[in-house]
């Protein structure tokens, strides 16, 4: 498995650390209430198909990367820096 880092180009999977679903990018507002925060903390979808993950280029440039991939075909469609995602 190879992941394209927007800084470094295509790199081996062993340089990366897997964080999980990219929902950290859509963190609820501090006053969003307990239900929104409970959902954010504990509930995850388990999609068969397209998903968005956060990967950390740990042994490379140290950037957090949003990886759009398909859990069925294992194809990686797109990668971009988490730092450039609009919030």
């Amino acid at each position, binding site marked *: 498995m190879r992941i394209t880092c927007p800084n470094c*180009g295509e790199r*081996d999977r062993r340089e990366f650390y897997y964080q999980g679903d990219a929902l950290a990018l859509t963190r609820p507002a501090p006053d969003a209430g307990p239900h929104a925060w409970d959902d954010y903390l504990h509930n995850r979808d388990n999609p068969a198909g397209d998903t968005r993950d956060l990967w950390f280029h*740990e042994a490379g440039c140290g950037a957090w990367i949003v990886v759009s991939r398909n859990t069925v075909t294992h194809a990686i469609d797109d990668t971009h820096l988490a730092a450039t995602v609009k919030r």
Partner: protein
Amino acid sequence: MVKLLPRSPCTDLLPRTVGTITMSEVLLDRVMSVAPFAGQAKPTSAALKDQIGLGLSAPGRAVSNRRARVIWAGQRMWLVAADVSLDGLAAVTDQSDAWAILRIEGAGVEDVLARLVPIDLRASTFKGGHTARTMLGHMSVGITRVGAQAFEVMAMRSMAATLVHDLQVAAENVAAR
């Protein structure tokens, strides 16, 4: 007061030669990490240009002149081999004694590194002035091409002995072929 003797990271380890490969230590007087604050990359680059004649390099690139060097070191991070003053523009940390820097050169140097490094370092893709943060064995390193058959490998100072040992074994195995 006790007078302390300066010891470089690779004292007692380098230089050494294995077959066609020579390894030597590179000593930089000053290494500062420069991490521009949000939105300050361009002013930081301009200030550096004023002070040392070099701006921030693009990702994956290293630049140098007679006075200084600027090496891209990761996401929004550069290593600058010079004294710089960037108050209000960037987080600057003195890392002068933090790095072991090893120059490895000679015929077949790419074959030696290919045994340890998971990226393509051949001259067709990794040209002069290219630099990469990657792995050497299990170690996180920075690798810069400094010549047609020469590279600089930067590792954490505490890993100096491992760095030299790993390269020594790889060079011996290439030489034995």
